């Protein structure tokens, strides 16, 4: 029962495909390569990136501290535009997280074996993105010290309770659930690798921590069996979250009455956009990790390629949503609605709309070309542009809908203050700080899973089929039983 899910494609493996993992690695090589990263000194590039990220994070933290001490007035919001950078950043970061869950859960269920090299970093990205996202709903409050009032905590404040009609309460649940499941899923996936680390790192804190967190993993058949069941269940649990979390976030807008917000297309539109932006962010991150951690053999064209194709697909969905919005507005016969959408494209913030179309619809079309897809530098730039475009998409939805709503007397403009810009930058700083720390202190590639796909693209189908017992199940067990690292294969 347990071993079945891990071999189905073995019989149908196509020989002509390029290998997933280059360099004819053995399972022992994988263990050596990945655990070495944890023991060696960080590269200069890593230090540079880390210090950059950390300084930007510190700047953002200062900005948030100042804003909390003085007031939301330090942002550029006004009586008409009550949300801008804050919620834009929130939706953006939540969206980023989605690709991680997609890769780790849905692609797992769909037996996409290329996910093995990137799923660890994608899941880490999810967690860090949700952390970044979670900051904004708290700091955007006028009185952030009362943020716990959003949770239905039994209390002594009389009959006070949360308003279950409010999408913000739904948000609190959705994000809380999402963070919890993502964290548990990530941690469970880490356990076999932590055990490997425990067994291979010579001494020190790293070994002790790995020993503690691997929860006494012994690599026995029973352990593997339990692990596979839990992992499969968690993948099943996480799968609906890919759809539900951003759906709920989109309800913040869809259930309101503001033209440009009040549209039923938002849930699928937001989910597609989230996956789109998340994939772009995964691309950004794995290309960075590949470069800074020298993982060229583990993150190959076979990994970049499918993600690029997914980007094209989701970009198409997003473009479709942009068009559908206009059609819905036209068809609504609601002049306020029609105005809201035309104002987005042609109003004072039309430049932002143009950036969004350029980055989200036009630029991803370059990925149709396999030449472009194989040029990592270009893919990196495209992924960055998509992130910019998706940030602007949320900015447009939030700000351009608000700034000119029903009564023309209310119409205002919006201009961020340096405090807000620093907060946005700081969230990126936090994200990259966490990611770089993750690269240093945790196995950045899911060793146990990669070992299962080592043969992909190398072996003939006959040879693969000739291997009776899935090596992925047995091989690590073999490793752990023996004291010496290389003896496994």
């Amino acid at each position, binding site marked *: 029962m347990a071993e079945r899910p891990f071999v189905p494609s073995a019989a149908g493996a196509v020989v002509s495909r390029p290998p997933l993992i280059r360099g004819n690695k053995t399972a022992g090589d994988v263990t050596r390569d990945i655990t070495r990263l944890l023991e060696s000194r960080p590269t200069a590039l890593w230090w540079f990136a880390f210090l950059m990220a950390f300084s930007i994070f510190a700047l953002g933290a200062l900005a948030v501290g*100042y804003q909390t001490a*003085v*007031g*939301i*007035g*330090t942002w*550029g*919001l*006004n*009586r*008409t535009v*009550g*949300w801008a950078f804050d919620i834009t950043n929130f939706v953006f970061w939540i969206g980023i997280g989605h690709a991680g869950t997609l890769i780790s859960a849905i692609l797992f269920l769909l037996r996409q074996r290329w996910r093995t090299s990137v799923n660890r970093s994608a899941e880490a990205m999810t967690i860090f993105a949700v952390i970044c996202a979670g900051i904004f*709903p708290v700091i*955007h*409050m*006028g*009185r952030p010290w*009362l*943020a716990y*009032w*959003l949770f239905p905590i039994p209390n002594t404040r009389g009959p*006070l*309770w*949360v*308003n279950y*009609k*409010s*999408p*913000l*309460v739904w948000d*609190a649940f959705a994000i809380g659930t999402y963070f919890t499941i993502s964290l548990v899923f990530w941690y469970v996936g880490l356990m076999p690798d932590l055990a490997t680390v425990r067994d291979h790192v010579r001494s020190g804190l790293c070994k002790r921590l790995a020993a503690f967190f691997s929860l006494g993993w012994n690599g026995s058949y029973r352990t593997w069996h339990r692990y596979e069941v839990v992992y499969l269940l968690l993948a099943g649990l996480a799968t609906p979250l890919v759809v539900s979390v951003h759906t709920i976030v989109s309800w*913040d807008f869809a*259930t*309101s*009455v*503001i033209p440009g917000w009040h549209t039923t297309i938002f849930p699928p539109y937001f989910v597609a956009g989230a996956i789109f932006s998340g994939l772009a962010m995964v691309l950004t991150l794995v290309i960075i990790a590949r470069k800074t951690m020298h993982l060229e053999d583990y993150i190959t064209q076979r990994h970049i390629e499918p993600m690029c194709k997914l980007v094209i697909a989701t970009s198409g969905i997003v473009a479709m949503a942009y068009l559908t919005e206009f059609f819905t507005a036209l068809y609504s016969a609601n*002049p*306020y609605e*029609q*105005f809201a959408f*035309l*104002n987005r494209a*042609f*109003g004072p913030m039309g430049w932002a709309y143009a950036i969004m179309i350029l980055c989200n619809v036009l630029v991803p079309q370059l990925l149709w070309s396999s030449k472009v897809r194989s040029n990592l530098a270009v893919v990196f730039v495209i992924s960055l542009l998509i992130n910019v475009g998706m940030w602007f998409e949320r900015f447009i939805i939030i700000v351009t809908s*608000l700034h*000119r*709503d*029903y*009564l*023309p*007397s*209310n*119409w*205002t*403009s919006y201009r961020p*203050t*340096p*405090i807000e810009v620093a907060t946005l930058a700081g969230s990126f700083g936090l994200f990259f700080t966490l990611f770089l720390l993750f690269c240093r202190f945790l196995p950045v590639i899911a060793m146990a899973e990669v070992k299962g796909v080592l043969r992909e693209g190398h072996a003939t189908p006959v040879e693969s089929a000739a291997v009776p017992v899935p090596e992925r199940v047995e091989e690590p067990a073999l490793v752990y039983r023996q004291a010496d690292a290389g003896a496994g294969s």
Partner: protein
Amino acid sequence: MDSSDTKRYWQSMEERNGEWSASPDEFPEPLPEPATAMSRRGFLQTAGFTLATATLTGCGRTPVEKAIPYLVQPDEIIPGRSLWYASTCGACSAGCGVLVKNRDGRPIKLEGNPEHPVSRGGLCAVGQASLLELYDSERLKQPLAAGQPASWDEVDQAVLAKLDAIRTSGGAVRFLTGTVTSPTLQALLAEFLGQFRDAHHVVYDPLSVSAVADAHQQTHGLRVVPRYRFDRAEVITSLDADFLGTWISPVEFTAGYCAGRNLEADPPQLSFHIQFESRMSLTGTKADRRVRVAPGELGVLATHLAARLAKRAGVRFAAEGLDAIPISPELLDEVADRLWQARGRSLVVCGSQDVRLQVLMNFLNHLLGNYGKTLDIESPSLQRQGNDGELENLLRELREGRVAALLVAGVNPLYDLPSSSELAGILQRVPLVVSFAERVDETASVAHFVCPDHHFLESWSDAEVIPGVVSLFQPVIHPLGQTRALAETLAAWMRKPQPVYDLLRQNWRMRIFPRQRGENEFDAFWDRAVHDGFAMVEHKPLQAKPFQFDAVRAIPSVEKPPSGALALVLYPKVGMLDGRHGHNAWLQELPDPITKVAWDNYACLSPATAARLGVRQGDVVRIETLSADAATPALELPVYIQPGQHDDVVAVPLGYGRQGTERFAKVGPRWLFAKPSVGENGRVGVRAAPLLRWTGGCLSPVGREVRIAKTGKQHALACTQSHHSLLTPQNIPWIGGKKRSIVQETTWPAFLRSRSGGTASHTEPPLKEDLWPPDHVYHGHRWAMVIDLNACTGCSACVVACQAENNIPVVGRDEVRRQREMHWLRIDRYYAGEDDVDVVHQPMLCQHCDYAPCETVCPVLATLHSEEGLNQQIYNRCVGTRYCANNCPYKVRRFNWFDYSREDRLQNLALNPDVSVRSRGVMEKCTFCVQRIQEAKIEARRQGKQLADGDVRTACQQSCPAQAILFGDLNDPKSSVAQAMRSPRRYRVLEEFNFRPAVGYLKLVRNRAEDSGEKHDG
């Protein structure tokens, strides 16, 4: 017993063997006690005490200050209940009746006195805001001698010595005041000045209507300003007179004007109002017909009208060879016809300071038989008594050094008058200059002695603004400083010091009491007058001479500025007026009803002129006069583009750049990127008075020829409204220029045909039946409001009234620029049309929707619906997500972006204790004055009565001079608000979205032909 002593019992073998002996203690061995003094029990005691102490001190607030109860409770004062005193508003010389709300011994709100025959219950923005000045810490607390604080005795002795010297030497004493409406003070002034051989009382008004009085001197032999009765006028023709905004007595005129335009009366009434004006005035926005005329063309226009009416009246009037003016003869004929048909029921008014023009006005009104009907000179208005000719004489005397003593009260000549720097030099040569100003203003800072008068809420006084109506001022608080009433000071300087109360009663006993018949006893009469705030007495009408036709001269030629130059129009802004209230933060923050700009003055240019000059809004321009005198300084002001203004005109508000506005440098929140509310000169705005012009013995704000030069500088104006039309912007393809039906208006013929004004009215119950039962069922009261757009003039009295009632903070210029003004009630102003724009005003406040979009989205239930239809905001519960404000279709919610503490801590005394002061991070908005609802309900319950219609009056409703706001219980079908809700004119803003607001609006109706009524875009 013995055996027990001898017999040895043992417990163990060791004991028996003597190795160990039993001790009498319970424990064989002593427990090892620690060497320290702390025992276990002691430790527990200490720990318990420490914990308890820490807990108790942690929970305890700062030491309680004991509130000591009154030893003898003053009569009527019950803590927590407000007392109302009738008094009179002293914020300008119009003399409106007020009721002062006192809580715990301090006045916290002014309201119009509904019984008062002049103001009839309204109170303007300035009057509302004058409360704040009572608590101004920059008011003088004691007299000044040579700029140094002194005691009254010292000042009295010094002044008396100087006055004695003048009395013996026979030097000229000049008492310069604004209009003195107080009969008591007038009598005292006469008595005081009577002591000197050469003494004279000179009166001028900073916003002068001296030409009106001068013209009546010429035509009727009486130097009076008539009392205008807009309520009796069916056809109103106004030439540049802003009678609803700032001219003479706006509250009184607004009440009268709206009485003549009552569409709910049976039959409905709607006067016809045509306004010829050069700038966009508040009055012009209400006109049925508004015609742009350059200031220099008004004379010819009046002559044309006079010629037409003289022909109809059969009076000879020589008016040949008139210059052409760009007004069609058909229109002039139509106006003349309408006026002629409404003889005796029409009114022609003019705001010009040109005596010739005012004489023509008198001629027109005489031809129309309006004297004695719509304007009264036999019992005239006493609200403006200034005589610019006498002021000019005084200035000449001063220049020639013939004045020995100048006493200045109630005016600020060094600010109000042009050539002030010259005047300041002259005043230094006058041997004695005394100012009675409440604070160190421009004039007081050059005076030898400053003898501060009380604030009007601290003092006894009286006012007779209409002959026969004598209002009383009564003190509602003990003077906050060592100030002294002007009357008392004068009495002291006549060496018969008396309290002002005695002086006032004496004068009333001698002069007022004999004029009445109702009461036999003076004390009863006095008590009633103090209670009512005014007394009606008899008045002997003045005798006017027959109309002097000789005085009437045609004005044949247009005064046109040379090409490339513009005519300058200086004008008082609603709220700021002549600048006497420049130190009032509420008024500085009040957006102008037309421009919606606060905290600045500016140069208004028409869109065409701005385009011609190549300037945009916010560009700083230099206004230079063409005239020869080089002493006139140039003004540097930001441009404001004003639709509806004449192309040859640049209009600049007066009243800015006041000394004392430096204080506003620290108004508003202070943070990293905050900017001060004052300009480069350290003051709010720029003083425009140097460009006033003396012409024909009158001080005229109009007619200087100026040239505009760009400076290349920029100055962002604090404008609360950035989009000014109900049309969507033209540059949005496909739907640009589409109109939103947020303001609905119709024409008089359409209204008469069907009372809803032609367009289909939205029906009640709502458009579609709901699938679900209503969210809210109201069994008891259901509060609702109706706002009559036809009555609303946009005067903004309600805005300040709301601010005073609800403790709304002042945020300063920078925050207003960032679109974060806090007013709960705002007045939206929309333009329609291209050049000859129509303007509509729409008061916008929380609509208290039944299906309120704000209520569903709050995550913590901080905003919810009451059982009486109120949308409530619970500040304590609010966490500040701002989702409710985003989801409010009317954007009436206001967020506390910062802690808005007052710039002047003393002004916290003006806070209404019934309304929470909001902290930062919480949302707030209109509550329908829930504290007033509660107060009325408690009072009704106390008296065992049902709450009656009219028991609850919101602050905005109360102060509205036009009575445009109705509030009450919709569940009571007989209530005025329920009746108004049934009016066919009623509509709701954004009704089609089914928010079901509790605020209804009554359509605007303009008295014009139907076809021309359809240019409305908004």
